[in-house]
């Protein structure tokens, strides 16, 4: 009993308690059966180009996305991230009713997912993405450093192994739209720490950070 009281006092006073891993993160990164299956397959970029035919009606030739943010750029995204997002959409974990009929089990096999992921990852990322108004970049830099850089990297390159998406090269309006959806709980498969990090952001702050990210240099621009 005394121990429980002591723990409660520690929690209430904000004193350090042994850090437990956030159980929500285990849920987020759980290796679903289909993702496990896809990860066992070797992707073939040439086949992936053919698979991409049914994607490019929305994501555009070269997977460059649309400046209006309706569809993201996929070129240069980590294959591991693409595989997680596609399998999450198929499993109903990520809400994406627009995409689902074009990516469900009737259209794509696990091999198709493996193939298109390596194809997209290797595509060139030209510096043609759209930007925001550029009027609040100093504040955005502070926010990015504080809330985003640890996972997404100083240059927005993400982390393939940890399934953190690359952000650099993405269209401003898509970054803003995705940020809003994650903040507002509409995406359903967002990383819990990501949700926590931007939960308090205003629309203006989201816009400023999206603007900053859209202006990050592209080391592979001339690839």
């Amino acid at each position, binding site marked *: 009993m005394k121990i429980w009281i002591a723990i409660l006092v520690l929690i209430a006073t904000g004193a350090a308690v042994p850090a437990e891993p956030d159980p929500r993160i285990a849920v987020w990164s759980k290796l679903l059966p289909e993702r496990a299956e896809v990860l066992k397959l070797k992707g073939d970029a040439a086949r992936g180009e053919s698979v991409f035919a049914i994607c490019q009606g*929305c994501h555009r030739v070269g997977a460059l996305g*649309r400046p209006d943010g309706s569809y993201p750029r996929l070129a240069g995204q980590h294959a591991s991230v693409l595989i997680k997002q596609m399998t999450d959409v198929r499993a109903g974990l990520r809400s994406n009713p627009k995409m689902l009929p074009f990516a469900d089990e009737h259209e794509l096999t696990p091999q198709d997912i493996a193939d298109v992921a390596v194809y997209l990852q290797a595509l060139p990322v030209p510096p043609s993405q759209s930007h925001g108004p550029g009027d609040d970049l100093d504040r955005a830099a502070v926010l990015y450093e504080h809330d985003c850089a640890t996972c997404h990297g100083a240059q927005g390159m993400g982390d393939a192994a940890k399934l953190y998406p690359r952000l650099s090269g993405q269209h401003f309006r898509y970054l803003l739209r995705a940020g809003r959806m994650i903040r507002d709980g509409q995406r359903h498969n967002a990383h819990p720490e990501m949700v926590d990090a931007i939960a308090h952001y205003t629309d203006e702050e989201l816009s400023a950070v999206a603007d900053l990210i859209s202006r990050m240099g592209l080391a592979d621009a001339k690839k």
Partner: protein
Amino acid sequence: MGASPSSVGSFLVASFAAVAGSLGAASPSYAASALEIAQTLCAACHGPDGNSTDPANPKIAGLDAAYISRQLQLFASGTRRSDIMAPIASSLATSDVRELAEHFAKSKPARGKVADPQLASAGRVIFRDGDTDSGAPSCEGCHLPNGVGNSRFPRLAGQHQAYVERQMLDFKNGVRTTNRLMNTVGQRLSVSEIKAVAEYIAGLPEGEPD
């Protein structure tokens, strides 16, 4: 597509006579037989070279051979429903299907006609960009810029407006069930968008001299 059962019957008689006649010839070939079938069975509706003049009947000239074969098989099995095409497709031997498909694939597709340039201009936006609000993809993503198609996605360029409109409405309403993805596309386009994009398709490919 206007072939009546009696014309199918007369075709069978005609082709039987042709086969019987060819037995005496030096080297009967599938090509000659397919050409015979094309003229007697297909031409009345689809035109002698596969360029039909009746907008209700599709042009089949220049379609990919594998696509034509697949559609004939779908008509024969009833998966693609057509009271007109089902008995015709069912009457064809597998080798005939292949030869006919290759015959019409090689035929040069005729230019289509745009009756309403303003409508076609509205359709161009759908064809090139899709409808981002509803989630309808652009047509060109699969059917290629200018709608020339390939072995996976059929040629659309120059097709009759009325035929494309009918097919898209059939996809939209679930009457044509041969392609789930196209059912989704149809559902995400409005009736007026379908009308417009069909008008634009009739004028494809853009900028090619007559």
